[in-house]
């Protein structure tokens, strides 16, 4: 199949671009000539990432911005800074937003605004960031919002009575719920944008990947299990190249496929296709983020 879109003309934002899948994707996109704006939460890791990529390709156009995505305030600041960095190309435009940053936490951790950590980093942050960057995406010929979901979104549901799982926190169920939220967000975004929009949203399933995600917010047994499990995973370069493929090949706006795994569309869970659930989650998220989409 011949490529439909040329990455070297694109401005691409990748969150969580300091390790794992996000770093691998930022690197590959930069090597293909895109202007990459990476987002990380740790200054040292950001400079390290820039250094690694620039060593490999001195001409790479790559910038990193720091933000802790567990803070919605910082997500708002971040979007303003992305806007000014993107403007360096002379265009007020972003072509692709890759919502990749994700976190796992064994324990219930409250964020500074009083939400739960995983729910905020994995769902609210991409929700709000996409909202803030939508005007820039609209200026692209074919804008894409790619949110990294997971096979964990199958066989689970949204806990409407206690969506932050304050009372019965279970780290795995909380994680699964956020990955389901990624799919619901993606379908609802497409529905609200409408069929004629130049922007399309996709949920991407990377499969089991050998990264440190399960070592960061854990301890004891859970940490040990992930240590064993991750070795069965694929190298992060593989899902990263699938993200690149998605950007280059999948038609916007024609494509109606929402969920992608290994360069192929796949049916997401039945729950994730429920419109009532998508609308309800959307409204809750709007309220938590203090925004209103598509009003007027």
């Amino acid at each position: 199949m011949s490529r439909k879109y040329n990455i070297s003309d694109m401005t691409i934002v990748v969150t969580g671009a300091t390790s794992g899948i996000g770093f691998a994707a930022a690197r590959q996109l930069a090597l293909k000539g895109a202007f990459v704006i990476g987002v990380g939460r740790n200054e040292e890791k950001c400079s390290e990432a820039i250094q690694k990529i620039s060593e490999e390709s001195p001409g790479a156009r790559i910038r990193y911005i720091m933000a802790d995505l567990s803070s919605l305030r910082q997500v708002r600041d971040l979007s303003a800074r992305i806007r000014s960095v993107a403007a360096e190309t002379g265009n007020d435009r972003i072509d692709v937003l890759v919502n990749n940053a994700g976190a796992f936490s064994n324990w219930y951790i409250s964020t500074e605004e009083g939400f739960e950590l995983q729910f905020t980093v994995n769902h609210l942050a991409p929700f709000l960031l996409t909202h803030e960057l939508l005007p820039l995406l609209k200026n692209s010929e074919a804008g894409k919002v790619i949110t990294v979901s997971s096979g964990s979104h199958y066989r689970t549901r949204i806990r409407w009575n206690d969506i932050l799982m304050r009372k019965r926190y279970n780290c795995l169920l909380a994680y699964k719920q956020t990955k389901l939220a990624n799919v619901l967000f993606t379908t609802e975004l497409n529905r609200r944008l409408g069929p004629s929009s130049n922007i399309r949203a996709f949920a991407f399933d990377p499969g089991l990947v050998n990264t440190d995600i399960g070592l960061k917010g854990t301890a004891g047994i859970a940490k040990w299990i992930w240590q064993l499990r991750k070795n069965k995973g694929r190298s992060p370069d593989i899902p990263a190249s699938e993200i690149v493929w998605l950007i280059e090949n999948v038609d916007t706006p024609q494509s109606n496929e929402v969920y992608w795994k290994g360069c192929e569309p796949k049916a997401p869970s039945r729950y994730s296709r429920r419109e009532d659930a998508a609308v309800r989650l959307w409204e809750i998220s709007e309220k938590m983020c203090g925004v209103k989409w598509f009003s007027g």
Partner: protein
Amino acid sequence: MQSFVCITGATGGLGKAFAVECANRGWNLFITDISEPALVRLADGLQTAYGIKVLYFPCDLTDADSRARLIEEMSGRKICLDGLINVAGLDFEGDFFDRTKEQIRTLIRLNVEANLEITHELLKLRNSEKTFRIINVASLAAFYPMPVKAMYSASKRFLLNFSIALREELRPMNCTVTVLCPAGMPTNEKCIRSIDAQGFAGRITTKNVGYVAACTIDASLKGKTVCIPGLTNKIVRFAGSLVPSSLVSQLIGARWKEAHRKSFQGNKPVLRTDN
């Protein structure tokens, strides 16, 4: 008239969990803690997400002048209270003899002096038309003398006894006092390190903060005296009551010293707030 629930130590882990729990029940909040920016962020978050009214005022509770300003602010604004949740508290882990004079004073001021004074002053602002609810945060550590946490566990014992007695005094005034005795809760990276260092024992007694906050508010609304979230913790508490306290103290001492060594490995003791 609008009334509020006041939470001290509101921007810490447990404090935030209480704030969210109250907000979720539709109660307006008056929150305080040391850092103003942190208060602003939490207040914004709660107001947008839950549509309640949140007032805040920064205060260093270990400082008498700062406390006076807080009380003045609240009485000046004629704040009317339905409840008070005293969450602020801290611990300096490590041997008593290694503590500085400053640390000793700070711990007593915050865990004991501030708690009593705030309770005393804010009782005057209670809404007389309703039952006034006071929640004090002690700790599972209140039930035993704990080496390596000698000051801390004793200060929490003070709060436990004080709360139970106060409850009887305030009964005719239509006030309830509930004292929460949680085990360690992982609320930030330092606590997580410390709980993890306790190994299995630390993990089975650990409950998440959201659950603890919800249980405590339920207990308070039912007028319960002591709230110990989690079955394991109740058993630990019960077992503790069967064995002489000097023996318990030795056992716990051994466990804590080990945990302390693993968690800090020769580092200076780290300040751990309860909240």
